[in-house]
């Protein structure tokens, strides 16, 4: 089952690649859509067949792969990872649709890159073997590097190289940690590592090694600087995947590696992590306020929201952790939607500057309604998914420290301020210039894409139980595991 979720999109990607150059662009698009939808369909049984009563790994697959290093092709999902696989497959469908008309050069390669990346990201979430995880983790950089570099904006080369080198630096230190754990335990199995006794200094060093890899991906302040560059230069689809899924991979890494492998190290470093998270929430929120570029603003908003996620993880209680997971899923929908909204505007105006817009609502009322909903969700309005996660994390935090919770809650103000202010400047007011006057409202394809996301955002906001019940057992199990010392 899990193999299908990983390899079906990759095989579809290779098939799309085989359609050749842009003379067959139409075929490539259709094939890519079929592949993406099929990829999403095969991931649905993971949810419907998921056993809610256990925290164990489900849909496990195990086969020997590299005997020399005792590496196994070991896959499995629990309540923490299963939703991300669905999110990835879902987002891929949207991305393929979003790039339908906009991408005109090297269509097959563009579509194939997203499909292959989708399979690799599913692999990251499903891998239970250290090397298998690392292979997927690094391999997904390759398509993203090409997406930014080939289809990106003005400064794409700089952004692509920065993206790749930042992540590679962190990842390689993690690789050393993985090999160290292998030498210590004689196995690359992540579940074996969870039970491996380690001294405090070992745990702290391992924590730092994992931290470099995951913090860059999240991204946490101060290693976040690659993200605004990458987001601004990437094509819309690239930004969506980056924000919706790739950032989650980092936070997921903390939950799968740092916490269970080095619980004492995590407790020792918790103060440090909480500080960085709060800086991200408050400081980056303020940075977002002054951005003149819409994509950059959403990028900073993402960093600020991901600060919430890491805060929720490192306060070590059920509210915080479930809140963090809900926030991750919800941010996947919302940030993806916001980037798609900016993409819709950019496709028509070829500008991302807030100053170039104004009065868009007069020409694009349907679009303005969607944009409004996602802007509200981004600022955490109750009834949208953005509220649930933030509320749960603040609830969890207030049990630990009022002061932390107070700082975290400022995001409700800053978030509303930067999002709604941008929304006001872009959408409301009189028609600003001739270019805006010539805008046309969104077409059926764009309505489908944004509509699907709107349903997800509202559904999760009004009735989050289908999401939280899946993660419940795994989160509790992880928390009790982290509470036990490994010394």
């Amino acid at each position, binding site marked *: 089952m899990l193999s299908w979720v990983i390899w079906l999109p990759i095989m579809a990607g290779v098939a799309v690649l085989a359609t050749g150059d842009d003379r067959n662009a139409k075929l490539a698009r259709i094939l890519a859509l079929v592949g993406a939808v099929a990829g999403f369909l095969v991931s649905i049984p993971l949810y419907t067949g998921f056993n809610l009563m256990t925290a164990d790994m489900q849909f496990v697959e195990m086969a020997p792969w590299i005997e020399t290093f005792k590496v196994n092709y070991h896959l499995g999902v629990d309540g923490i990872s299963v939703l991300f696989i669905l999110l990835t497959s879902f987002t891929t469908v949207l991305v393929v649709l979003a790039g339908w008309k906009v991408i005109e050069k090297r269509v097959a390669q563009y579509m194939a890159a997203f499909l292959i990346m989708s399979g690799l990201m599913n692999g990251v979430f499903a891998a239970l073997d250290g090397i298998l995880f690392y292979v997927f983790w690094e391999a997904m950089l390759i398509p993203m*590097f090409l997406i930014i*570099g080939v289809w990106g904006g003005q400064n794409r080369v700089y952004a692509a*190289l920065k993206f*790749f080198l930042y992540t590679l630096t962190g990842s*390689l230190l993690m690789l050393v940690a993985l090999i160290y754990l292998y030498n210590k335990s004689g196995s690359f199995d992540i579940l074996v590592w969870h039970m491996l006794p380690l001294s405090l200094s070992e745990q702290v060093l391992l924590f730092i090694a994992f931290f470099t890899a995951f913090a860059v991906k999240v991204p946490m302040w101060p290693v976040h600087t690659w993200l605004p560059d990458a987001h601004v230069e990437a094509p819309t689809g690239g930004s969506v995947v980056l924000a919706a899924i790739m950032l989650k991979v980092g936070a997921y890494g903390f939950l799968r590696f740092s916490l269970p492998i080095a619980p004492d190290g995590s407790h020792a470093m918790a103060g440090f992590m909480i500080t960085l998270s709060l800086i991200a929430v408050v400081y980056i929120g303020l940075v977002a306020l002054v951005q003149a570029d819409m994509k950059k603003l959403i990028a900073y908003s993402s960093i600020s929201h991901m600060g919430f996620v890491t805060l929720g993880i490192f306060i070590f209680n059920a509210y915080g952790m479930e809140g963090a997971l809900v926030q991750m899923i919800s941010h996947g929908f919302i940030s993806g939607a916001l980037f798609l909204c900016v993409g819709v505007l950019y496709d028509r105006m070829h500008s991302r500057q807030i100053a170039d817009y104004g009065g868009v609502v007069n020409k694009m009322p349907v679009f303005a309604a969607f944009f409004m909903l996602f802007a509200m969700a981004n600022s955490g309005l109750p009834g949208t998914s953005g509220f649930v996660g933030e509320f749960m994390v603040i609830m969890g935090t207030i049990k630990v420290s009022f002061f932390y919770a107070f700082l975290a809650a400022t995001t409700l103000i800053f978030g509303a301020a930067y999002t709604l202010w941008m929304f006001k400047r872009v959408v409301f007011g009189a028609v600003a210039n001739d270019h805006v006057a010539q805008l046309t409202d969104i077409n059926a394809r764009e309505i489908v894409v944004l509509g699907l996301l709107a349903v997800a955002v509202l559904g999760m906001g009004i009735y989050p139980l289908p999401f939280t019940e899946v993660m419940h057992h795994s989160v509790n199990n992880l928390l009790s595991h982290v509470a036990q010392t490994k010394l």
Partner: protein
Amino acid sequence: MVFAMPNLTPALPEIFVLTMASVVLMADLFSGKNRFVAYMLTQVTLLGAAWLTVGTSSGEIAHTFSGMFVDDVMSDVLKLMTYIAVSAMLVYSRGYMQLRGLFRGEFFALVLFAMLGMMVMISANHFLTLYMGLEILSLCLYSLVALQRNSSQASEAAMKYFVLGALASGLLLYGMSMIYGATGHLELDKVATAIQHGEGNRTILTFGLVFLVAGLAFKLGVVPFHMWIPDVYQGAPTAVTMFIGSAPKIAAFAFVLRLLAQGLPTLVQDWQGMLIILALLSMAIGNITAIAQTNLKRMLAYSTISHMGFLLLGVLSGNNGGYGASMFYVLVYVMMSLGAFGMIMLLSRQGFEAEKLEDFKGLSQRSPWHAFVMLLLMFSMAGVPPTVGFYAKLSVLNAALSAGFVWLAVAAVLLSVIGAFYYLRIIKLMYFDAPQDENRIQAQPDMNLLLSMNGLGVLALGILPQPLMALCIYSIQHSL
């Protein structure tokens, strides 16, 4: 005086290659202008040598020539890989050499003699055999570099290579003679036993070791004995550069292993420290200097230096797992190196050497498939999964960590990030930039096929690295 005829079976491949090299030389003389005869004869020789190597392999360690020569699993595997590398080199270079008027009989004869030297090095069990193999190889390489007689750049490179190479050989001989003086033996196994029994003056042994390691470092091309590599790589015709950058690395690896792991295992404490310094310097200087290069051949030269530093990480761990990791690394490296130089020759035309980085601009628009092959090769060199280069790095890092050098592994990965930059730059040129050169890429079908296989092989071995890895570990375990 009774003269016992030595058992020739273990040395049959060498004898065959020697004979055929002479035959090629003669055949070329009488085949007139048609050099294709010599080319095919050389390929047939490689095939025959492979057949003989497989046929005479017994899975056990067989000594002959009074213990001067050894035939074991490791030597068989390494020789087979050498044949494959040389054969691939010949296929790649055919078109290139024809266009430059270098497709001549002496090219093939020199290549075969050089390969004979490599085979002797791989199978040597004695200081003198090792040295003899090395000299056969080196002398052929010096003249190969100078093959393009009218190029002053090539002559300069050859001269530099020769002078420095002779110096290194001298160092090596000096080291060998010191160890001979201390132990009274020249045969590797006997030297090892003698040192183990505490024979020999420690100071002389250590001094000898220093000279040996210096000589080895020169032949491998690791810092600070790397000065010849960039000049030779740049100055030689690309086909010869490809030759120097591929098969001889296998022989050099065998040379290091025979000398250090087989001959001086009890001095591991001493040579380990030296190798750490060499490895660290090579990875640092190789990777950092490569960034500044605008000439692709020169860049690949510095990349070789850093790769050889990585290779030493496995050797310096001083155990069979580490030697196996290094063996895997060298085989993978040779494969990537062949592909990368193959790409340079693919883009070269009559009177045009595609050795500037800019020549790769926009390759993905000129030829998507070739760009993809180069992409795989570059990611593999950078050690990014799912290409085989990642597993090579993984193996040697694991070897260093299992020997307890965590800091060395951390330094190695940080330096490899620097390395990733210049490989990524080539991908950037190919994919992100617009093409400058609109000439159609012409390649013979055999070269195209081989290049595709080379690229896909990097990917296929990256998805299923187990067979080659197991082969390396197996051959080390059954030979040392």
